[in-house]
């Protein structure tokens, strides 16, 4: 499966993922304390420069991820124009765009494996208390593997619907689809148990 991390390798890919995530949290909270439109415009410009530095492909991928904000920018723009407070509107839009663009920047410059390493590190206290986090790790791997498997099965269900009906496939497919997923869960559960299960670590 394709992760959202950028194909263009940047220097930021080698920075520690935990540090990037912590910095993102601090920066996002900080954004809500900036009231000055000039400072926010500076922040937006700085973020835009950060997106431009790694090259055109990176910029294009980054801007594509921000497209989801357009409807909200339009809503705020119209709203603020109607009540006649455009400066406040600009502050709201710039703050929103900066928060999402920064978070997106961290996602783009952090490899999936590094992110999962952070998750593993975050669950360290659980292991201290003797709880096994093996279940979480196997579950993450299972989802990544099962998404394409289920997509494939869903595709085949759609095809068999099309072979029999003239109408378009509808939500009715969700029932057989869920049954397939439940049956798969049965088999996967048995397979996990057959391979030693998840509790063996604690028993030994």
């Amino acid at each position, binding site marked *: *499966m*394709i*992760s*959202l*991390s950028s194909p263009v390798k940047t220097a930021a890919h080698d920075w520690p993922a935990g540090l990037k*995530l912590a910095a*993102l949290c601090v920066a996002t909270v900080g954004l809500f304390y900036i009231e000055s439109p000039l400072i926010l415009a500076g922040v937006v410009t700085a973020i835009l420069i950060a997106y431009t530095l790694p090259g055109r492909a990176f910029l294009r991928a980054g801007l594509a*991820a*921000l497209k*989801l*904000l357009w409807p*909200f920018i339009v*809503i*705020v723009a119209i*709203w603020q124009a109607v009540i006649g407070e455009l400066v406040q509107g600009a*502050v*709201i839009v710039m703050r*929103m765009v900066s*928060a*999402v663009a*920064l*978070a*997106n920047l*961290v*996602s783009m410059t952090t490899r*999936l494996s590094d*992110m*999962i390493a952070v*998750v593993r590190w975050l669950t360290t206290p659980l292991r201290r208390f003797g709880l096994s986090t093996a*279940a979480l790790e196997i*579950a*993450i791997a*299972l*989802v*990544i593997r*099962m*998404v394409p*498997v*289920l*997509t494939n099965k*869903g595709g085949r269900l759609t095809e068999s619907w099309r072979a029999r009906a003239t109408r378009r496939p509808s*939500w009715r*497919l*969700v*029932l057989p*689809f*869920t*049954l397939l*997923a*439940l049956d*798969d*869960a*049965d088999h*996967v*559960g*048995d397979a*996990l148990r057959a391979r030693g*299960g*998840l*509790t063996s670590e604690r028993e030994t």
Partner: protein
Amino acid sequence: MEKNVALIALFAALIAVLALIPKITLGFGVPITAQSLGIMLAGAVLGSKRGALAVLLFLLLVAVGLPLLAGGRGGLGVFFGPTGGFLFSWPLAAWLTGFIVEKWRSVPLGASVFVGAILGGIVLSYAMGIVGLSLALGKSLIESTSLMLVFIPGDMIKALIVAALTVSLSRARPSSVLSRH
């Protein structure tokens, strides 16, 4: 243990795959996606605890950068965006849906799933989603609510579909509806 891990992982994957179902556009131009249907279904079928864990696992994978949300979205940005409140509400929505189905046994299964999905998937989810929206857009809670009202009919339909699906599942595989076991 293994069975539960497999169920939670499979439902997390199911929520992801439901996003691939082409969105239906209601008569008045509001798109509805099947993804939030998956959230309600996880609670209704797996029960409160496992349902919430399945949704948490799904969101964890979205957060680490997999494009599993409807429209191929994912990464950390979606959590900080205007609709982030809805994402944060999803584990609780699945939990509440499952909790109601587990506890309210004096009515037929379909009725308790419908009420659970309305309270969890609509009332609770919109309450948190609207708070997030009002923070991001700098609008009051009432103004933000008015922006979201158009989506509620679609979600009511989803709650009905989830109730019908859960009843059919309990007929096809009586043991599969864990919230009632």
